[in-house]
């Protein structure tokens, strides 16, 4: 409105005055825009700063010992970060082990194998997985998947691989390999580190596979056709031509998935069992940083609250670094493409 009124008035002293006013408005406008953009920066710095500030008591009280201590005792107010940090890293690691090959398979199928008419619908369906809210994954995990896991998958793993089978007879694997400890458990329910890892894997498959699919399409057709002309099979083209060409972006996509997995709260909270214990077995319940915060923050006070803030700071720093690597790796391919 104001601008219009101004424009009419400016017709009298024409030119100079008007140009000056436009320049002033332009300057103000660009400052406004820049301020909004800097808010993004402020959010990141603020989130790191606020959690560091909130966690200062915990860092001050426990020092470096905080990182390696597995204590978690609200009674004596002693806390250590090891249990949730281990839970976060282990669930994300399991998720990656499952999700990376599956995502590669999905991307390979969608870019090389599937008939063209099937590609778009299947790709949209897989992307639908990314759109489902994490709380739904959580509910499905708690009520459907965890019981299924406890009835059908867990007994098999504990009896044939673990060192605590129901009948007490150790299998060869349990006696001779580290798998015995990894799969040994006498916890009867489905909630466990492995369950959380599987649910996380399902959540990050669409992210990793859509990045992979996207970057696979950037491979020059000439390169692929040359390999085909030399007699390569589809698999050889994918493994020896497409994958090396897109390596950095594929690793970037994997790190992007890892970043998601590390920070995921709701789905993990439901299926991890929330036990503040350090167990060598991935079939025992555990805790992750995010699930510990979600469970305890509203009732925590004093040092416990500060500890949770400190944990959030650790989580934020780790995810930040992982995502930084991811974006940087993804950028490598974009540079190669000349974009």
């Amino acid at each position, binding site marked *: 409105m104001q601008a219009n009124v101004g424009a009419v008035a400016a017709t009298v002293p024409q030119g100079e005055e008007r140009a000056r006013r436009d320049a002033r408005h332009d300057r103000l406008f660009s400052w406004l825009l820049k301020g909004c953009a800097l808010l993004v920066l402020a959010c990141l710095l603020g989130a790191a700063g606020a959690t560091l500030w909130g966690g200062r008591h915990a860092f001050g009280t426990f020092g470096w010992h905080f990182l390696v201590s597995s204590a978690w005792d609200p009674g004596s107010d002693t806390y250590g970060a090891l249990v949730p940090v281990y839970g976060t890293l282990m669930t994300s690691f399991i998720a990656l082990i499952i999700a990376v090959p599956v995502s590669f*398979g999905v991307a390979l199928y969608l870019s090389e194998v599937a008939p063209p008419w099937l590609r778009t619908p299947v790709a949209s369906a897989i992307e639908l997985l990314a759109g489902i809210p994490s709380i739904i994954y959580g*509910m499905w995990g708690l009520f459907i998947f965890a019981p299924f896991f406890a009835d059908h998958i867990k007994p098999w793993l504990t009896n044939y691989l673990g060192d605590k089978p129901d009948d007490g007879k150790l299998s060869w694997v349990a006696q001779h390999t580290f798998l015995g400890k990894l799969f040994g458990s006498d916890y009867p329910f489905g909630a466990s580190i492995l369950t959380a890892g599987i649910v996380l894997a399902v959540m990050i498959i669409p992210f990793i596979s859509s990045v992979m699919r996207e970057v696979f399409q950037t491979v020059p057709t000439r390169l692929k056709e040359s390999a085909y002309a030399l007699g390569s099979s589809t698999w050889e083209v994918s493994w020896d031509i497409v994958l090396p060409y897109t390596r950095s972006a594929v690793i970037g996509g994997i790190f992007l998935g890892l970043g998601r997995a590390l920070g995921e709260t709701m789905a993990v909270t439901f299926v991890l069992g929330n036990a503040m214990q350090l167990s060598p077995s991935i079939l025992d319940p555990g805790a992750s940083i995010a699930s510990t915060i979600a469970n305890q923050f509203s009732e925590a006070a004093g040092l416990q609250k500060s500890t949770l803030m400190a944990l959030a700071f650790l989580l934020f720093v780790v995810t930040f670094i992982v995502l930084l690597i991811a974006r940087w790796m993804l950028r490598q391919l974009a540079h190669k493409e000349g974009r």
Partner: protein
Amino acid sequence: MATSSSLYTYRRIKNVIALSLSVVATLIGLIFLAWILWETLRQGIGALRPQLFTKITAYGEDGGLANAMVGSFIVNLVGILIATPIGVLAGTWLAEYANGTKLGESIRFLNDILLSAPSIVLGLFVYTIVVLPSTSLTNGSTTFSGWAGGVALALIALPVIVRTSDEMLRLVPSTLREASLSLGIPQWKLTTQILIRAARSGIITGVLLALARISGETAPLLFTAFGNNYMTFNPSDKMSSLPQVIYQYANDPGEGLHAIAWAGAFVLTMFVLLLSLASRLVLSRSKVSHD
């Protein structure tokens, strides 16, 4: 000749196995999708009843989710209303003013990181800057509020909107800018009245996507909006939201509450999926109209 033909067979078998595994991988993804959606549908539709939309959570198993839905609506609205102007303006700066500059590139980069930053940490950030200061104003009673929840959701929506606005504005042909500037239009007018209009449908898509993203968020609301068993329309009160009630009910041992949680999950999933469908429609329609 024998060795080369056996090598050929080996390579062919390897190829068939690898490609079949890729089909299996895709099937695994689709099976999980179908499984999750099917259970949400089955359990959710079974628990749907009218009182879900008319009664509040204070009645527990005999109640509904009316206050949670109203709360979700208000908190999401606050979040989107905060994030949209800031996000569009920031995206405009990235695309129009800072394209190619160092600061612009770094903010674009950091925005991508904020896009996948853990939402629970952003929730704690808002707890520190909104809930704690207002608590000190009210002599120590913790003041969780709908406003705080809205700010937390705005932080999650912001990078989505920044990114889509930035991308959509960069798609606007530069002839449009040159034509306007040659007519002597100041840049702010060009930006607000021509470029943002040209990229409008893309920007709306971004806002819809952001809305879909935040309406499923639970973690940051736990210690900002907190939850409220009674109906309230005032964002200064504690406020419940659909995902937060689902979380609370699903963790409760009561079977009746589980049914309500499933019904809520069904409503939420349908809402989110319809939103992402709508955002796609907006985008595809705009593509047609440009041709």
